[in-house]
């Protein structure tokens, strides 16, 4: 008996929690009831089709992608030449598509050409009069790199604004050069934050500190020049973040020991002083590289550089492989943003905003009305059928269905899902499919009753036997969701997330809630001869 009381209490608590998260904010918004902001912020938002949102146009600075490749190639050339004992007077990259080499000693000209041929397959080599060579990036390579940069930027943005696939943005390439990206976001409450997340480059680099920190750049230069293959990176004194305690400089190797491409995951954590931080995990490949570098440099400082700024430079105390942490004086929101940005990967190029405007809904009032009407009709049909076919037990199923709907709405709001018209239709469909579990249980109970078992025994047998049927159907569905989430993108992932939520909520309501309702109904009757089913 007290067991039953606990079940009822559990169910009521779940109901109240999910109503307040999933249903109440929607009603409050609709009728302008004042309610606490932490509830409203989490409310289910309406999609671009129902309510519109913001419309952003960004330009991808495709030159950046070219510059990156040119810089890398020139560094590789420098290394290779060094290995062969050739030291030209100057190797530089005057613009994103050219590498200029000056002062190649005439005696080594042939070797130089050989080395250059091996390395710069992406570049056209100039004549080389007087030991000066100009390498120009081939036009087709330029076009490919630019295209790739835009495609990659688009995918990265999509991962950032739609990590779980449930926020229903609209993202497309735009413009005659195809170098613009159109992003439409539904129901954004904080546009500035959204813009910042989209635009952050998110390039993480781990580099060994050669010298520093120093108060000025000049202190790290030899003869007013930065040593070959090195660069100077600024950072905040006293460790990164937003605290403005003055800038210090570090001299680090230009080539990163490990970069964001080797990142597997990033998540919010805390540092040893309990301040917000971001922990990251490297891939196996990245871990191997990092293990080698950190093992060779124990006792030296490691600069953790984010978007060209040193966040922190801890001293390496032991060999580290796959785990690391970015610390600094961050706020909780900053570490959340940062971990999302790192997880979604670095942008291949910087972005600039060209346009920002608000947009209205894509669907007309008529379409919305008929869609909502159809959903209500669908729901009522299912409810009527259950009541008609299963009588009082049908009431049980309908109560379970209402619970299911409430839990679903609450969980969707929790993961930040956005409601579109097809989404609402999907909800109703989920209900139509969800009562299947009740039907299976009820039919089994009928079978047991026919076999002349008592009412209580039949109900118990019905639930316990069908549990394993539902177990198998739900696990099979969860397995396919896992694959869809792991390998799908955008809306496919969103579909998987929604389905998982539906499956969990359905198991809870069809088994736990429904069984408890039967128990409550039978609790005060000693002799139960009949069951309305």
């Amino acid at each position, binding site marked *: 008996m007290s067991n039953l009381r606990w079940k009822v209490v559990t169910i009521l608590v779940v109901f109240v929690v999910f109503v307040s998260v999933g249903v109440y904010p929607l009603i409050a918004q609709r009728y302008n009831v004042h309610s606490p902001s932490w509830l409203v912020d989490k409310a289910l938002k309406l999609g671009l089709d129902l309510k519109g949102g913001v419309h952003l146009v960004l330009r991808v600075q495709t030159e950046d992608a070219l510059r990156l490749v040119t810089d890398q190639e020139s560094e590789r050339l420098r290394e290779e030449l060094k290995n062969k004992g050739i030291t030209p007077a100057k190797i530089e990259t005057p613009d994103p598509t050219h590498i200029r080499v000056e002062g190649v000693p005439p005696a080594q000209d042939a070797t130089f050409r050989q080395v250059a041929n091996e390395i710069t397959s992406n570049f056209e080599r100039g004549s080389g009069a007087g030991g000066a060579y100009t390498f120009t990036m081939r036009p087709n390579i330029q076009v490919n790199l630019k295209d790739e940069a835009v495609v990659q930027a688009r995918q990265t943005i999509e991962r950032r604004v739609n990590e779980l696939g449930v926020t229903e943005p609209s993202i497309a390439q*735009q413009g005659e050069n195809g170098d613009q990206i159109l992003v439409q976001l539904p129901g954004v409450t904080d546009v500035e934050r959204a813009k910042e997340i989209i635009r952050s480059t998110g390039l993480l680099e781990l580099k060994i500190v050669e010298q520093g920190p120093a108060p000025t750049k000049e202190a790290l230069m030899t003869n007013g020049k930065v040593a070959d293959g090195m660069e100077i990176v600024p950072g905040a004194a006293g460790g990164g973040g937003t605290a403005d305690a003055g800038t210090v400089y570090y001299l680090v190797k230009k080539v990163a020991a490990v970069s964001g491409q080797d990142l597997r995951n990033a998540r919010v954590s805390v540092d040893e002083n309990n301040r917000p931080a971001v922990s990251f995990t490297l891939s196996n490949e990245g871990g191997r590289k990092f293990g080698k570098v950190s093992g060779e440099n124990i006792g030296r400082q490691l600069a953790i550089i984010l978007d060209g700024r040193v966040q922190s430079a801890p001293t390496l105390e032991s060999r580290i492989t796959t785990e690391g942490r970015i610390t600094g004086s961050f706020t909780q929101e900053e570490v959340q943003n940062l971990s999302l940005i790192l997880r979604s990967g670095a942008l291949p190029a910087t972005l600039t905003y060209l346009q920002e405007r608000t*947009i209205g809904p894509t669907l007309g009032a008529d*379409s919305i009305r008929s869609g909502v009407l159809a959903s209500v*009709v669908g729901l009522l049909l299912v409810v009527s059928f259950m009541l008609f076919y299963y009588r009082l037990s049908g009431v049980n199923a309908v109560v379970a269905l209402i619970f299911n709907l409430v839990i679903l709405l609450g969980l969707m709001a929790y993961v930040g899902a956005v409601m579109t*018209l097809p989404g609402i239709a*999907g909800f109703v469909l989920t209900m139509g499919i969800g009562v299947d579990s009740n039907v299976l249980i009820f039919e089994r109970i009928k079978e047991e009753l026919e076999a002349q078992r008592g009412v209580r025994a039949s109900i118990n047998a019905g639930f316990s*036997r069908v549990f394993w049927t539902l177990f198998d159907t739900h696990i099979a569905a969860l397995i*396919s969701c896992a694959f869809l989430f792991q390998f799908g*993108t955008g*809306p496919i992932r969103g579909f998987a997330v929604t389905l998982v939520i539906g499956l969990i909520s359905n198991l809870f309501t069809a088994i736990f809630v429904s069984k408890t309702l039967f128990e409550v109904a039978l609790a005060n009757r000693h002799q139960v001869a009949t069951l309305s089913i």
Partner: protein
Amino acid sequence: MHIFKHTDIDFLRWRWHAIAASWVIIIAGVITIATKGIPKGVEFAGGTVVIERFDRPVSVQQVREALDRNYPGGGQNTVVQSTGDPSANMVMIRVPQVGAESGASLSSEAQKVEDALNKGSLAAHHREGAEIVGATVGRELTSRGIWATVLSLFGILAYLAFRFQFSFGVGAVVATIHDLLITLAFLAFFRYDMSLNVIAAILTMTGYSTNDTIVIFDRIRENLRVMRRDSMNHIINVSVNQTLGRTVITSGTALLTALALFFFGGEVLHGFAFTMVVGIITGTYSSVFIAAAIVSLWRGDAPTRAAAHAHVMASAAPAPQQPQRKQKPQRKARAS
């Protein structure tokens, strides 16, 4: 109340007819897709965005109607949204790219939109801007979506092989692929655009079909344990008959909602609801006629003794139709 009471239909007798009928539809579908293709929705095709500023306030509805009537090829796939400050009377219109023409047609596309607006006798307007837009659904989504679906089928195969028998996994997966192909065939016959909504419906449908199939398999598994002297085909038939009522009811409730969406949901939900209606019907059909038939074909009609896998977890009450209760011996006592 019972829809079906103690039916005794020999479902397996009809298996070859069922398989033949399905093949006919699938082949017809393949031919339709090969010759006519599957029309792709706006999300998959790029297009042109035109922003128009009107002198007087106009409703989005008016603009939509003007395009519906006057834009070449109809305004079905055009998207109209108000934009910017409401007092600016700006409307953003997105039209899909038509046919093969692309690239340089920016101004001509924009002109077509303006012509359509002029014919609609709306307020005076002028072009605020026009841009070529790419598809909102990247190629990546389609390729990775297909890949994910294929892998998820393998996942289901493995799970059912583990929980039931390998042949059951094959039966369920074949039935699901069957439903996928039949649904695609019907989408092609009725020329529905392939949109994100339709893809969502297809994914829902595949899950639903597996669901139905597992319910029947579950009963076969249970009967295998208690009817150990009977032939496999007999057990399959008994099981399908026993579960027929719930198969029809469960599909019925899902079908009710799908039909409501189809008939009352309007243009936007048509493709989605149509896919679901077809999917639910074919999913139910395949669970009854195809999935079990494949199991019987795969493992043959051998005596079932020792064929059922032990499932200690599935204890509880025995099936009511078989009073004798025998404790399940360990499997592989004798190879079948």
